[in-house]
């Protein structure tokens, strides 16, 4: 696994990424200026936010949308809040 600061002798040639599924290791949460907060009181569990999230950051466990959002990877794009039919997701400034 390539780490920030690695030298040219230590990284794969040609920009190849040799570790499969490594995007999970790349934390993009720092890009966020606003973060989604899910109000479980309003949520109707339709899963639209879960389906639309481009970063797989809305989590669903046993068929139930969780209010524990993956903030390590959520970029704060706001698609979830935009798609929610009952306005259960609010974008809050970081």
């Amino acid at each position, binding site marked *: 696994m390539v780490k920030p600061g690695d030298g*040219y002798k230590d*990284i794969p*040639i040609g*920009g*190849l*990424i*040799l570790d499969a599924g490594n995007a999970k290791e790349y934390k993009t949460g720092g890009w966020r200026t606003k973060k989604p907060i899910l109000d479980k009181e309003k949520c109707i569990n339709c899963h639209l936010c879960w389906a639309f999230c481009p970063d797989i950051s809305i989590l669903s466990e046993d068929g139930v949308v969780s209010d524990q959002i993956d903030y390590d990877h959520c970029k704060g794009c706001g698609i979830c809040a935009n798609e929610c039919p009952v306005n259960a997701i609010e974008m809050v400034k970081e």
Partner: protein
Amino acid sequence: MSSKVALTGNEALAQAMRQINPDVVAAYPITPQTAMVQTFSQFVADGEVDTEYVTVESEHSAMSATVGASAAGSRAMTATAANGLALMWEILYIASGTRLPIVMPVVNRALSGPINIHCDHSDAMGARDSGWIQLYAENAQEAYDNAIQAIRISEHKDVLLPTMVNLDGFITSHAVESLEILADEDVKEFVGEYQPENYLLNADNPIAIGPLDLQDFYFEHKMQQAVAMGDAKQVILDIAKEYKELTAREYGFFESYKLDDAEVAIVALNSTAGTAKAAVNNLREAGVKAGLLKIRVYRPFPAEEIADALKDIKAVAVLDRAESFSTNGGPVFADIRSVLYDIKANVEVVDYIYGLGGRDIKVEEIESIFNDLQEIIKTGQVENRITHFGVRQ
């Protein structure tokens, strides 16, 4: 057993490609390269190779498909010339930057415009900094030999860079020459099976090729390329040595022709070297200590070796078959003059830009260049540092 045959340069390269038997060839015809891929496509149609032949709609697509095939894990080749090479430009850098060992014959031709289909080196010289190894050939035999060696050079684990196998348009590509073709099984054994370490179609080891590479790592990847280009020098010599055992034909970074005791010398690439040898022979008969340095490996540039070969010459003329429009001479001139500066050699170097758009250069014309060099030695004066040789006033 090798066999003596009479072939055009294009046919010789098509034979080399048949014997290499690449997994994929994606090519687009362009004069003066057309006969090469046309002949090869006949081998495909006749079932003489196992190659998947991809007919594409442009050279941009030809190089793109070749890159894709190579990244997938196959031995992939293409061929082009002039404007075709220019259209590949973007993908040339992707091939070298992604470290794909593609081998591509380039039949050197003038770039338009004005439109011209004849020989000069403006195509390949423009691509000299694209991260490709560049080999040049005096004749069909050398082009054939370079193509076979290029497979081994490019695919070597210390290199993994693509190679352009250059030959002069029409002069070499269309003239019929006598040359030795190796036995099919000897080429098969020499090039061996291509066994990439990391490739896209390896389901057991999934990888990503060509991802975004920004401020944090791009520079390191360019450094890796620079190191590989440097390491290619030893690999080129090692493979030439192995090839000599097979063929008795000797290759290095360049050929020194009557250079050891020479006072005046010419540096040239490709077919003009043959013409220059005739001029050297005539001048030697007349008592002039003339010599020739014929560059075979232009990228990587064998700087120390060329400096060593030219250090005792008194005056050198570089023949550039490309105008770089720098107003400071052609590309080969810039490289040669630079290495001589490093060793503080007491040698005058002048540039002759010649033969653009396929204009012939004759033996007596090269003799006149040697005469200019002798005049420089006699007077100690360089009247013209850069000459556009034979251009009409």
